[in-house]
C-alpha cells in the first residue's frame, strides 16, 4: 500500500495525470476588450518612476505622505494608515498608503484591490510596481465602465503592513499593547479579488512569475491564474511561469516529467511551509482571491523583454476581466496542484495516495493490535498443553495500557510545553528564541530519558516479582502457564503511534495537502518498521534516524540546506506564526513532536 501511494504520488506530475487549465468562469472574458493604457500612460508611469525613486529613500511616514499626495493629484481619494506590531523577536511600525477610485456608475458595494509593498520579495525597493499603480489610477480615472471600485494599497514592511490594512478594512483593527492598527478613513465595498504587484527596480524584465500559495497552503481560485495566463497569451505577450523558476521546454518525455515534478515540488514546498509566498497570501485569509505577479529578469533567457507599457496593458486587461465578474470567483478549482502555468492536477487525483498512506498506517496498527492478543498461538499452546482444556474464542492475554498511554500523554504535554516556551515572552535577560528552543529540546530529551528509564525499571521489577512468584509456587506452575504474560508495552505503544499518525495524515490532507504528504512520507518508514531490538547497534541507528526526523533535526537540516543560521530559521518560523498565524509551529510542536518522542521511547523500550 505504501508502494502504491508512493508510485501514485510520483506519477502525479506526469502529463497524463494533469489537464490543461481552462477558463471556467464565463463572465471573465479575458482579453476580449481593448485597453485604455496607451503610450502616454507608459510615459506617465516612467515619470512616476522617477518620483517614486526619489521618495523611496525617505522615512516610512514621509514617503507615505508623499505618495498620498501623488494619488490625490490624480483625483483619487487617498489616505494613510499607521500601525505597530510587537512580536516576541521584533517590533515593527509602518505607514500604509491607500487610495480608492470610485467607479462612477456603480453602487460601490464591490471593490478590487491592486497592491504593492514598498519592498519587493528580493528586498529591493518595489519602484516599478508602485509607479504602475499610479499610472493605472490615472488611466482608470478616465474610464466609466467599472462596476467595482478599485483600491490601490501601498503597504509598508513585509507582510505586516498589508495585514494591518486588511484587518482594519474588515473592521478587525486592534488597539492593544502588541498591535495597533489605525482605523481606515476611506472605504469601499467588499473586496472581490486582488492583484499584488512585485516589480522591483526601474528596469525592464523578461519573465513574470505567479505566486499564489497563501497562509496555511490556501490557494486562490484557479481562474485567477487562468485569466492572467490567457491575457499573456493574447495581446500582452509575456513569458509567464510559476514562481521564479524558468525551466526550458523540452520535447524529451523524461526530462519533461522531471521538470513537471520539479515545479510541483516547488509548489508543495511553499504550500507545506504554510507561510505565503507574497502579500497575496494575506487576502486569502479573508476569502479574497489574489495572486502576486513578480517581474524578474533572467539573463540569457530567450524571451523578449517587456517594459511598463506592456505591463500596464496586462494589468489593466486583468482588472477589466475581474471587473466583469458578477460574484466571487467560484467556478474553477480551489484545490489543485500545478505542474506548469497551464497544467493542473485536480483534487480527485491527488487525494487518493495520501489517503492510502493514512490507511496503511491504520492497517498496520490493526494488525499489531491483533498481534498483541496473539490468539492463534495461544490456541495452539492450549491444545498442545492440555487436551481437556476448552479452547476459548477470545484471548486471555491482557493488554497493558499504562505505559503506552502515559508515554503518549506525557509527550503531548511536553509538546504543548515546548509550544508555550517558544511563543511566550518571559522577560529574562538574554532571552532569545534559540535559547528557548534549546530549553524545549532539553525538556523533550528529559522526557524521553525518564520515560525509557522508568519503563525499564518497571520491567525489571515486574520480571523479578514474577520470578519470585514462580519460585514460590512451582507446584502450581501449570495454572500460571495458562495465563500468559501481557503483551509487550512497545507493541501497544506502537499501535497507538500508528493510529495517531493515520489520524494526523488524513486530517491534514484535507487542510494542507502538501504538509500532509511531507509528514506522511517522512514518518512512514521509521514509524512502521522501527521496533526495539536486542542489538545495540540497530537501536542506535533507529534512534539517530528518529532524531534526524525530529523537529530539531529537521530544523538543522533546513538551516544547513539554505545555508542559514539556526536562529534565523527559528525566527522565521516564529514570525510566520505570530504575524500571519500560520499553523506550522503549532502543528510541529503539538502534533508532530509528541509522536516523534513517543516513537523514540518505543524504540528504547525493553524487548521482552
Amino acid at each position: 500500500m505504501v508502494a502504491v501511494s508512493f508510485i501514485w504520488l510520483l506519477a502525479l506530475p506526469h502529463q497524463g495525470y494533469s489537464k490543461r487549465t481552462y477558463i471556467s468562469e464565463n463572465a471573465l472574458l479575458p482579453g476580449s476588450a481593448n485597453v485604455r493604457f496607451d503610450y502616454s500612460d507608459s510615459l506617465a508611469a516612467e515619470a512616476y518612476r522617477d518620483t517614486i525613486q526619489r521618495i523611496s529613500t525617505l522615512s516610512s511616514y514621509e514617503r507615505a505622505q508623499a505618495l498620498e499626495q501623488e494619488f490625490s493629484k490624480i483625483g483619487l481619494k487617498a489616505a494613510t494608515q499607521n500601525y505597530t506590531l510587537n512580536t516576541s523577536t521584533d517590533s515593527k511600525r509602518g505607514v500604509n498608503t491607500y487610495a480608492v477610485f470610485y467607479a462612477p456608475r456603480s453602487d460601490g458595494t464591490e471593490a478590487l484591490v491592486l497592491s504593492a509593498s514598498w519592498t519587493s520579495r528580493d528586498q529591493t525597493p518595489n519602484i516599478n510596481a508602485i509607479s504602475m499603480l499610479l499610472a493605472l489610477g490615472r488611466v482608470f480615472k478616465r474610464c466609466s465602465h467599472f462596476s467595482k471600485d478599485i483600491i490601490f494599497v501601498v503597504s509598508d514592511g513585509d507582510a505586516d503592513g498589508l495585514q494591518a490594512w486588511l484587518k482594519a478594512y474588515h473592521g478587525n483593527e486592534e488597539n492593544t499593547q502588541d498591535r495597533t492598527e489605525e482605523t481606515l478613513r476611506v472605504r469601499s465595498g467588499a473586496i472581490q479579488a486582488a492583484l499584488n504587484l512585485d516589480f522591483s527596480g526601474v528596469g525592464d524584465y523578461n519573465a513574470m512569475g505567479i505566486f499564489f500559495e497563501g497562509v496555511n497552503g490556501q490557494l486562490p481560485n484557479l481562474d485567477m491564474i487562468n485569466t492572467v495566463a490567457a491575457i499573456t497569451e493574447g495581446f500582452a505577450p509575456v513569458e509567464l511561469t510559476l514562481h521564479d523558476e524558468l525551466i526550458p521546454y523540452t520535447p524529451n518525455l523524461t526530462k519533461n516529467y522531471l521538470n513537471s515534478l520539479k515545479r510541483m515540488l516547488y509548489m508543495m514546498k511553499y504550500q507545506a511551509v504554510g507561510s505565503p509566498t507574497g502579500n497575496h497570501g494575506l487576502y486569502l485569509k479573508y476569502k479574497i482571491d489574489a495572486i502576486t505577479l513578480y517581474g524578474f529578469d533572467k539573463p540569457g533567457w530567450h524571451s523578449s523583454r517587456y517594459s511598463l507599457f506592456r505591463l500596464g496593458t496586462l494589468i489593466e486587461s486583468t482588472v477589466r476581466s475581474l471587473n466583469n465578474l458578477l460574484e466571487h470567483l467560484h467556478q474553477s478549482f480551489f484545490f489543485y496542484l500545478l505542474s506548469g502555468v497551464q497544467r493542473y492536477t485536480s483534487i480527485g487525483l491527488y487525494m487518493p495516495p495520501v489517503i492510502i498512506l493514512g490507511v496503511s498506517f491504520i492497517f498496520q496498527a490493526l494488525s499489531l493490535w491483533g498481534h498483541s492478543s496473539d490468539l492463534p498461538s495461544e490456541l495452539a499452546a492450549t491444545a498442545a498443553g492440555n487436551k481437556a482444556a476448552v479452547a476459548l474464542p477470545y484471548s486471555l492475554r491482557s493488554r497493558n495500557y499504562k505505559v503506552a498511554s502515559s508515554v503518549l500523554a506525557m509527550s503531548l504535554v511536553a509538546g504543548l510545553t515546548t509550544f508555550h516556551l517558544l511563543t511566550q515572552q518571559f522577560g529574562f535577560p538574554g532571552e532569545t528564541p534559540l535559547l528557548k528552543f534549546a530549553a524545549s529540546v532539553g525538556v523533550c530529551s528529559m522526557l524521553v530519558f525518564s520515560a525509557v528509564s522508568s519503563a525499564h525499571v518497571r520491567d525489571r521489577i515486574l520480571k523479578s516479582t514474577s520470578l519470585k512468584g514462580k519460585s514460590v509456587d512451582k507446584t502450581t506452575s501449570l495454572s500460571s502457564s495458562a495465563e500468559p504474560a501481557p503483551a509487550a508495552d512497545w507493541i501497544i505503544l506502537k499501535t497507538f503511534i500508528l493510529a495517531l499518525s493515520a489520524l494526523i495524515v488524513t486530517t491534514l490532507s484535507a487542510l494542507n495537502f502538501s504538509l500532509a504528504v511531507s509528514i506522511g512520507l517522512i514518518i512512514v518508514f521509521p514509524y512502521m518498521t522501527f521496533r526495539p531490538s536486542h542489538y545495540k547497534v540497530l537501536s542506535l541507528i533507529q534512534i539517530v534516524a528518529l532524531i534526524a526526523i525530529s523537529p530539531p533535526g529537521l530544523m538543522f537540516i533546513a538551516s544547513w540546506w539554505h545555508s542559514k543560521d539556526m536562529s534565523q530559521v527559528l525566527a522565521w518560523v516564529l514570525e510566520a506564526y505570530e504575524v500571519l498565524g500560520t499553523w506550522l509551529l503549532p502543528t510541529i510542536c503539538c502534533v508532530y513532536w509528541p509522536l516523534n518522542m513517543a516513537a523514540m521511547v518505543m524504540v528504547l523500550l525493553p524487548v521482552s
Partner: protein
Amino acid sequence: MKPGTILRYIAAGVCLASTLAVSVTTNQDDVEGFFAKSKSGHTNNWAVLVCTSRFWFNYRHIANTLSMYRTVKRLGIPDSNIIMMLADDVACNSRNIFPATVFNNRGRHLDLYGENVEVDYRGYEVTVENFIRLLTGRVAKETPRSKRLLTDDQSNILVYMTGHGGEEFLKFQDAEEISAYDLGAAFQQMHEKKRYNEILFMIDTCQANTMYSKIESPNILATGSSELDESSYSHHDDPDIGVAVIDRFTYYVLELLEKVEKGSKATLQDLFNTYDYNLLHSTPGVRSELFKRPLDQVLLTDFFGNVQNVELTEFKESSSAEAESEPAVEGTTVYPDAAQNETRLKPEVQADVSQWQDHTFEIGDPNQSQTLRYALFVVLSIAMAGALFAGSSLA
C-alpha cells in the same frame, strides 16, 4: 325588323351576358387574392421575443433579441403586438462603455436601444411561468394589455427565443429552465384555445433543435440554430465593449431580413436556403411537417411583418351576434386555480369551435350558389336584351 336580325341580337346579348357573368363570378377570387397577398389566412401579426439570459457577458443575447425587435417593428408589427421579454438590462449596466446603448455589430452603426424600445417583461419578470402564462393567455386579471398576448385564430405569431440551452431545455436567467415538453404543451393549449393561425418558432441557443421536438400542434413551423450535441456560437466581439455582440444564427437570419421590405415576396424557403453550416458552425434545423403550406409560398412578411389581410365574408345577421359573444372566450380570464379553469373553459371552447366554423365559412355549398348566380345573370341579361330589342323596335 327581320326575325333574323332579332335572333342575331339575342345571340349577341347572350354572349355578352355570359361573359359578364363569368367575369363577375371569378372576380371574388381575384378580390380575395388582392387583399390577401398570401394564402395564410391571417389578419394580424404578433411577435413574442424572449431573451432568457442575464448578466453582462450575455450581451449578445440581448442584442439578438433587440435586433429581432427592430426588424419586426420595421416590417410593420406595432409595439402593441410585440411582447418583448428581456432578462437583463445591459444598456444601463455599469460595465457598458457606451451607456444606454446596445449594438449588434462591431461597426456600431445602429444603436438598437436608440429610440422607443418597449420591453414588456423586464429583469426578474422573465420567468418560465410568465412566459407560459403569456402564451396560453392565463394571465392574472390585473395584467395590463401590454403584457398579454391578445391573439385569436387569425393571428400569425413569431416566437423568437435566445439564451443558453441544452438538450430539450432552455435556461431562464440561471434560475430555472423551460423544457421542450413545457413548450409543446403550451403550444397545444394555444391551439385548443384557438389562439393562433400559424406560429413560426425560432430559437437560437445551444442544441436548439431539440427544443421544438416536442411540439405536436398543427400549423407550427419551427427552426433552430443547432442540433443535438452542438453548440451555437457567437458571431463576433466588439473589442471596445469587450463582449460578443451577436450570435451567428441570428446574424445570418438578420442578414437576409435586412433586405426584406414590407411588400417583399421573399419566402421562408428563401430564408432556409441561406442556412449554411460553414457560416453558422452548427447545423440549423427546420421542422415543417406540422405546417400545411408549402414553404416556398410562405412569405417572410407573414411572420416578420404586419401585412394586413382582409377577410371577405358574406354579411349575415346572426354573425354579428356571434361576434359579440366571442371576446368572452378569447379573453380567457384567469382564475387562481388553473385546473378549475381548464374544466370550466373546455365546453365553451368546444362550443366556440362550431361558432367559428359558421363564422368563417359561408353557409351552404359555394359551388351551388355560384351556378344560381350564373342562372340569375343569364335571365337578367335576356330580359335586358329583350328590353333593348323592344326599345329599338319601338323606335
